[in-house]
């Protein structure tokens, strides 16, 4: 035998890996085929779609600019209020839960588990569903919206805040512990300075998301611009729909600019 033939055989994948990869490909194709059959595409509607889109755009244009002072403006302001109050409420609730979820700050696995359960249950429910719940509790209106936004945001803010706490530099914490500092003082002088920038970043990011989320809450009666949008949609006032959508777009851009400006100045 020659030396070349003796060279150890090398293959990128073991037979088992190759089999696994093939199985994944096969399952992917099967999933796509099954999905296509499940959605039941109606060919007539599909061919028709571009035409319908053009028709919709023609009905939307020109936008009903006059509707802005009539209804949209007040609803927009309400939307921003819902987003802001909801964010503030969620932060107040999420701070203690986040501290409780961080294993290094709260060295009790049972408490960590409870906190993580609370955070997951907050996140597992969509804000529209939270809104439906709170509309049932408080009746339709912005209050239901504020609570819907707050309860959906707890999971987001609490989880990220807890993770930031867990990433805090251990050495500084150790030093304060070694100096005999009580737990609350370690939290204040050890953890807080380290997590503060990330905390404000999380809060502003969530506010930004909440401005967008609160725009649709009105569809289920939880106040804000969504109510105006819903009414216009139901009455086929497509020019008003267009104006409302444009206004939401404007507000989202505005929120983005505000957040970016604050972040640059504060952090």
């Amino acid at each position: 035998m020659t030396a070349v033939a003796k060279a150890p055989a090398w293959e990128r994948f073991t037979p088992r890996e190759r089999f696994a990869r093939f199985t994944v490909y096969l399952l992917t194709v099967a999933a796509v085929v099954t999905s296509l059959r499940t959605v039941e595409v109606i060919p007539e509607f599909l061919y028709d779609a571009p035409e319908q889109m053009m028709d919709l755009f023609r009905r939307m244009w020109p936008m009903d600019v006059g509707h802005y002072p009539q209804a949209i403006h007040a609803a927009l302001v309400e939307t921003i209020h819902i987003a802001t109050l909801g964010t503030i409420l969620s932060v107040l609730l999420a701070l203690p839960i986040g501290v409780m979820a961080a294993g290094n700050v709260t060295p009790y696995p049972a408490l960590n588990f409870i906190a993580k359960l609370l955070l997951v249950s907050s996140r597992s429910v969509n804000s529209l569903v939270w809104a439906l719940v709170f509309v049932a509790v408080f009746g339709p209106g912005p209050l239901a919206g504020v609570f819907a936004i707050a309860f959906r945001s707890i999971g987001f803010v609490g989880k990220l805040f807890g993770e930031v706490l867990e990433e805090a530099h251990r050495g500084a914490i150790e030093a304060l512990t070694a100096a005999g500092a009580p737990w609350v003082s370690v939290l204040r002088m050890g953890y807080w300075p380290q997590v503060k920038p990330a905390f404000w970043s999380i809060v502003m990011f969530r506010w930004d998301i909440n401005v967008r989320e609160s725009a649709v809450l009105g569809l289920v009666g939880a106040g804000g611009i969504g109510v105006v949008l819903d009414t216009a949609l139901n009455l086929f006032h497509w020019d008003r729909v267009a104006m409302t959508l444009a206004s939401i777009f404007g507000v989202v851009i505005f929120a983005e600019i505000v957040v970016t400006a604050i972040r640059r100045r504060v952090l």
Partner: protein
Amino acid sequence: MRSIAVDEGRGVNARALVVSDLVVAYKPGQPVLKGVTITFNGRGMTAVIGPSGTGKSTLIRTINRLVEPTSGQVLFLGRDMARVKGRTLREMRSRIGMVFQEFNLVERLSVMENLLCGRLGFVPAWRTWLRRFPESDIARAFDLLDAVGLREFATQRADALSGGQRQRVGIARALMQEPALLLADEPTSSLDPKTSVEIMELMTSLARRNDVPVIVNMHDVELAKRFAERIIGLSGGTVVFDGPPGALKDEHLKQIYGGEGWL
């Protein structure tokens, strides 16, 4: 194993630290410290030397209970540090200052606030939350900043300082506690040789001026011999040398570090 004579004639100092039969095992059955007994007589500087992984840091960290001992006693100020809990543990810790290898400052706080962190064991939590520290603490912080030569850095953030400056802040923070004992865990290992000597000189002179006994961990034998009045050699989790620097000979170093090619 030799035992040392502790302050013969005058008895044991009130700030003496008695470590007896100390065993620390991070994993059951694999002790890092295998029954260490040392009496620190509560004055001057004692250096603990030994190879990496031999339990130098573990010994120092067990003294202020950053590490939980498996068995044994650590008697200090009339209490057993291995047993105390809760508030008593915090009070005991607040009497023991500590200087760290990686400085362990709160990077985003000012130098002044890092010094005030040394007082957290004494300041009520509500004052800490409002960051309203007693004026006497602030005055002491300025005195210590003068002593370590960093007064003009008081309002700068700790992360703006160099390594040597940070360790000066670390030493000042530890002395803010008005400690009855100063522990230093490899205080110069992150510093260059010149800065290391400066830091050791500063620590020695400040400890002497404040009349604080020091226990320092180091792997630099020459630095230990130069500054310490007593050297403890640790190897394999037990004390293999205990005596003045002059008595530390090559055969001891062979025993502590193993081999001789490096000598």
